[in-house]
């Protein structure tokens, strides 16, 4: 749509600016402030320059957490995106069963994060959980509090359980927008199932899939509550992702300087990757002439 040039539109944006300035800019400046100073308590601060940033960039602890974070995000994206598309392709197109599936699928999305953690914490326990108990009965040595692999598996399955529906619902919305005529044309051309998917369904889902990947990337990169409730970051540090590590440092140990420097680097990493996604997305929008 061609938009009119009008700088008075700024007035319409002012309320948002005021609110976000209060709830984002001021706190962010506090973080920047801490990241450049050191303190011995008593609210006496002195200039530390870029020392904290150098420390953080050198520290193995944060590199390890970042590595685990990237691995986690990579794995859940690799599972959730194809699985979500697959589920969307199999969903009923309309009628009672479509609504039925939609409502049940959206259910995990609306459960508070720590309840999601609690559900899986209970579900995986060997003594009282269905999953843990069944696995133990089958002779599998499963214990997510002691075994690194089991802890990872539990956290990943939990995330797949929690968020695959988001990808599926988005893909479903994309599929719904394909006119019936496209499928008829494909039939006349005797296109196979794979060809229909590759040349009709996938291009139509492209836009929504990018949104899905962007949202899943951002949210999994800041995941905190769910793994924290289930494993507490353990065993050892095996499931300590970036946010968990950050909270440990900032609130647990009150190392404000390093925590603040860490926060800023963390935020910048997310921003950078999201910016790439966003640019690709807006360019796609333009190409389709929306």
């Amino acid at each position: 749509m061609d938009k009119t040039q009008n700088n008075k539109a700024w007035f319409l944006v002012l309320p948002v600016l005021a609110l976000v300035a209060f709830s984002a800019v001021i706190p962010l400046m506090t973080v920047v402030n801490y990241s450049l100073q050191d303190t011995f308590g008593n609210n006496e601060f002195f200039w530390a320059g870029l020392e904290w940033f150098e420390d953080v960039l050198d520290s193995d602890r944060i590199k390890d957490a970042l590595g685990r974070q990237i691995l986690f995000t990579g794995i859940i994206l690799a599972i959730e995106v194809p699985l979500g598309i697959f589920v969307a392709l199999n969903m009923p197109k309309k009628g009672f069963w479509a609504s039925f599936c939609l409502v049940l699928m959206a259910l995990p999305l609306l459960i508070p994060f720590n309840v999601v953690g609690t559900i899986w914490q209970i579900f995986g326990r060997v003594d009282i959980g269905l999953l843990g108990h069944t696995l133990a009965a089958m002779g599998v040595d499963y214990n997510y509090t002691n075994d690194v692999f089991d802890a990872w598996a539990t956290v990943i399955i939990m995330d797949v359980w929690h968020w695959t529906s988001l990808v599926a619902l988005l893909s479903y919305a994309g599929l719904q927008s394909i006119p019936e005529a496209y499928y008829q044309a494909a039939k006349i051309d005797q296109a196979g199932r794979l060809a229909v998917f590759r040349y009709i369904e996938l291009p139509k889902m492209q836009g929504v899939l990018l949104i899905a990947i962007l949202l899943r990337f951002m949210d999994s990169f800041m995941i905190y509550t769910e793994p924290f409730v289930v494993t507490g970051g353990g065993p050892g540090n095996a499931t300590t992702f970036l946010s968990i590590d950050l909270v440990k440092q900032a609130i647990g140990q009150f190392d404000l300087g390093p925590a603040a420097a860490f926060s800023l680097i963390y935020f910048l990493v997310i921003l950078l990757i999201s910016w790439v996604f966003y640019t690709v997305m807006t360019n796609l929008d333009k190409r389709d002439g929306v």
Partner: protein
Amino acid sequence: MRIKGSAIVMGLYLLFLLVPIYWLVNMSLKTNTEITSTFSLFPNDLTFANYVTILTDPSWYNGYINSMIYVSMNVVISLTVALPAAYAFSRYRFMGDKHLFFWLLTNRMAPPAVFALPFFQLYSSVGLFDTHIAVALAHCLFNVPLAVWILEGFMRGVPKEIDETAYIDGYSFPRFFVKIFLPLIASGVGVAAFFCFMFSWVELLLSRTLTATHAKPIAATMTRTVSASGMDWGVLAAAGVLTIVPGALVIYFVRNYIAKGFALGRV
């Protein structure tokens, strides 16, 4: 043949989604002794005592009331500020609009863990610590950008000619916006409200950091059972089930818009 295959896939997927939830419901209907001593797929000794505990104890049910209050406040605030902004983004080009839009989105990308401590200090210093409005404002951090994004998508779908005709007919901007424009994007507003509700309802890190007693959310109250003498599994499970109920109700009401909503109006 294909219909049958897809029914099996959907059946398995829904089973995967529902079994953990079923297990929680199952546990909430058992007594603690039954939970720890026997292992059964159905409650042998059906009891509603866990629910009674929660619904009669103020320290429990106040958690629900607190959560409800700040979530509703957040939805109202987010929509009020997001509506005019989304209109501006969807209709006008102005200095720095693209940068501003991306900057707004960056707030959706900010990890709550980064903001927890500064928020605590900010809200303590202005005397808002442990109030509902503090949590509602803090959640605006990620809900306002999202609401603007969703609403902008829906508003783009309304042809500009409608605005122009209304102005020619002598409508002032506020009157046009409320009388003509809002009804046209009603479903978009509903979807935005749904998402604000959802993300505010499920968030715990910020709402726990910013509250102590008066505005403590239910999700934070739940952690109490974990540390209390022994584990009160039954009550924990019942509290969990009750946090799922409001979400389930909301989903039921918006079921026909869910799919389009999740695509943020961009299909």
